[in-house]
């Protein structure tokens, strides 16, 4: 249970930490703002968990997927508007990401908390997972900050575009999972290259939305949505300000 808690907490927390780091450099957000948004995100995730079982029964047992798909769209749009240095959009993106990912871990925590001898490994695994994710976040922050100093804000916008577009791949999978979208094109198999449940696979998945067996539709959506994000981000940024304030 210790290892499961550790892996679960890393899987669910890493995407949140990565987005928080990206937004705190692009918008930028102070540590206090990130902390407040995180608290709100935890509260929203708890509410989500409370209503999840009920929501799951709506729309012919597809309610949960519809809510998750909506969250994916909200994250994509809010991340895009964040490129205009909007703190509100950054807060929305962060809270929606926490609701999407943390709710899974909270369901796990709440379910197994009362099991015999489970509390200790649950807590220990969670603390270790949180520690690893925060350490990764700090290292990523300094790495990206040095990139901003040398190359400006654009590499971060590209990374945010890839990260936000990855949420649309989740949307595609969810839509296909409940038979709303018919993805008939064959799946590609990259499992011989990087397996998704390896250490590198998990980091790539959280950072860029890597999938070892993506459909051709997913690849097209990924490419087109990334380009659309980058073009719109440029248009929004130019309209808003001539001088990017990224990292300042």
């Amino acid at each position, binding site marked *: 249970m210790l290892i499961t808690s550790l892996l*679960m907490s890393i899987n669910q927390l890493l995407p949140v930490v990565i987005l928080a780091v990206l937004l705190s450099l692009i918008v930028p957000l102070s540590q206090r703002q990130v902390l407040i948004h995180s608290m709100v995100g935890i509260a929203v995730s708890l509410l989500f968990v409370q209503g999840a079982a009920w929501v799951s029964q709506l729309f012919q047992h597809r309610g949960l997927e519809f809510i998750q798909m909506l969250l994916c769209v909200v994250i994509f749009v809010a991340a895009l508007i964040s490129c205009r240095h909007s703190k509100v959009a950054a807060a929305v993106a962060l809270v929606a990401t926490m609701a999407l990912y943390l709710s899974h871990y909270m369901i*796990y925590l709440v379910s197994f908390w009362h099991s015999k001898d489970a509390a200790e490994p649950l807590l220990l695994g969670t603390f270790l997972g949180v520690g690893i994710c925060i350490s990764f976040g700090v290292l990523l922050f300094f790495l990206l900050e040095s990139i901003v100093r040398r190359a400006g804000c654009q590499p971060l916008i590209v990374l945010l575009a890839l990260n936000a577009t990855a949420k649309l791949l989740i949307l595609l999978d969810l839509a296909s999972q409940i038979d709303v979208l018919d993805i008939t094109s064959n799946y590609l198999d990259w499992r011989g290259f990087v397996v998704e449940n390896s250490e590198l696979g998990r980091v790539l998945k959280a950072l860029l939305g890597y999938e070892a067996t993506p459909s051709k539709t997913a690849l097209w959506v990924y490419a087109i949505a990334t380009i659309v994000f980058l073009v719109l981000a440029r248009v929004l940024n130019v309209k808003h300000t001539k001088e990017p304030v990224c990292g300042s």
Partner: protein
Amino acid sequence: MNKWIFAFTMMLCLPSWLAYGKEYTLILKDHLFYPAEIKVPANKKLRLLIDNQDNTPEEFDSFDLNREKVLYPGRTSVIYIGPLSPGRYDFFGEFSPNTARGTVIATEDKNADN
């Protein structure tokens, strides 16, 4: 006009209906999936019914199938998969990954489970 719209819609849906496969049931009990291996026809869309008979939730997860769904206790969940190329596709319960494990094996029609 409405007839033409109806006919056009039917035409669009036809390939999807033709490609549609069978329904398969998985049971989760004592943190184990039954059956642990399902043989399914390749290149068909399939409906997977998962009945969680445990008193704790589980999360159906598969990196190979790109599927992730919370299975609430005492409830049946539905997941659509495929069309799959022939091969093995592992899945597991994310909350009990050591015990709740299984594989979808996509093969030619004649070898698939009923």
